[in-house]
């Protein structure tokens, strides 16, 4: 039962969870739950249908340079933001050498580099992390 695992919900000493804090309900279209599926799932399912915006909405309008770094709009040699978020399945293909849909080769490389460097907390991170499906 829950109280058999007091370490679970109780915050560890030193970083108490504030009892009252700011809370975002988020956009109606965003997703706040990723359910772990069997690695050998029979259905393609949600993981490949999740989406990764480039860049994340917090930095909307910024450009992406060849190394995948987010740079100010108009930076020379960098690419404008992607028109629409990429689907997990497309990203997976691009990671294996394909091109992201609707992009040139260099643009696709830049976006993929951006996605590879996604940090926790950024939009699309959970989707990206779920794509890491090493199979033999």
């Amino acid at each position, binding site marked *: 039962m829950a109280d058999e695992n007091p370490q679970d919900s109780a915050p560890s000493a030193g970083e108490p969870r504030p009892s009252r804090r700011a809370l975002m309900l988020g956009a109606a279209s965003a997703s706040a739950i990723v*359910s772990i*599926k*069997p690695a050998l*799932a*029979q*259905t393609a*399912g*949600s993981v490949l249908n999740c989406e990764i915006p480039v860049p994340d909405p917090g930095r909307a309008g910024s450009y992406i340079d060849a190394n995948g770094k987010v740079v100010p709009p108009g930076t020379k040699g960098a690419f404008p933001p992607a028109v629409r978020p990429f689907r997990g399945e497309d990203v997976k293909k691009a990671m294996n050498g394909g091109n992201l849909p609707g992009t040139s080769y260099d643009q696709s490389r830049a976006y993929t580099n951006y996605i590879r460097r996604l940090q926790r907390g950024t939009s699309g991170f959970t989707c990206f992390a779920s794509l890491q499906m090493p199979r033999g």
Partner: protein
Amino acid sequence: MSGALLAQMLRDPASVEALDASGWTGLLAAARAEQLIGTLAWRVEGLAMPEAARRVLEDARATVEQGRLVALWEAEMARRALAPAGMPVVLLKGTAFVAAGLSAGQGRQIGDLDILVPRERIEEAEAALIAAGWEWVKPDPYDDDYYRRWMHELPPLIHRERDRMIDVHHTILPLTARITPDAAALIDSGVALENGLLVLPPEGMVVHAAAHLFADGDLQGGLRNLWDIRCLTDEFGGTEFELKLAACAALHGLTREVERALRLSDHLFGEGADLTLADRLYVRRLLARDGWGRPTRKLTEFAFYLRGHWLRMPPLMLLQHLWTKWRKGYRPAG
């Protein structure tokens, strides 16, 4: 023959104590192949056995226990999806055994979720399930059309998030089979569980298991089916139950099948029974496993494959069906 060894160990668990390493190896392989390893693990728990065997069986027990939770959850999600429609939903087979807490559920490996709903409401059920995240497994026009016209269930659906299949039945045998059980009576006989889902009464469960075993299909996995029947008759046995069972079997036109199931169950798992010549063929088929878990007696198997189809369809339709399957590359497992 390891199929016979498996049946013997289920009947008399204490006899595992006499097994040597190769006996254990063959037993475990056959139990896995018959999907009875969880059942075996339950039966022999606490007996003396080599450490390596104990470990394999312990893992099998943990696996069926997790499988039980997942099966019950799948039933619960189907209940949530179908509850607003207010139709009766009867759980069948393994999920019903564990939901009702029956001994037949102990160690039972459970695959898909099988439910029975009234025939006139099956499309409503289908729509509600699709709205709740289930989708078609494989869109194949021939199979789809075939299912809808002739089968006793919808084409299988799989839940896109949980990766679990559901079979939605409206009766317990294909419409093409020569025996036509009274599906409405089965649903009416349903016993309500605490959450509102129904299960068949014990005699209905036995009749369904016997129908599934002898009147539908090629007896693959039949040993597990027969074990289900054994557990049910052991748990509910007695004169009163026998009368109910006979009446239920007669109502659905399955007297011959139920009587055969009881004879084979007594022969394999009980005190013995007088077998007919045909019964002996069934026994041969049910025990056809070698020490590597391979099916043996290919000819018997193929005969039962043909027979399974014969029972389900009139001959001309059978020919058309086999021809279509053949062109699509199906061959009986060999």
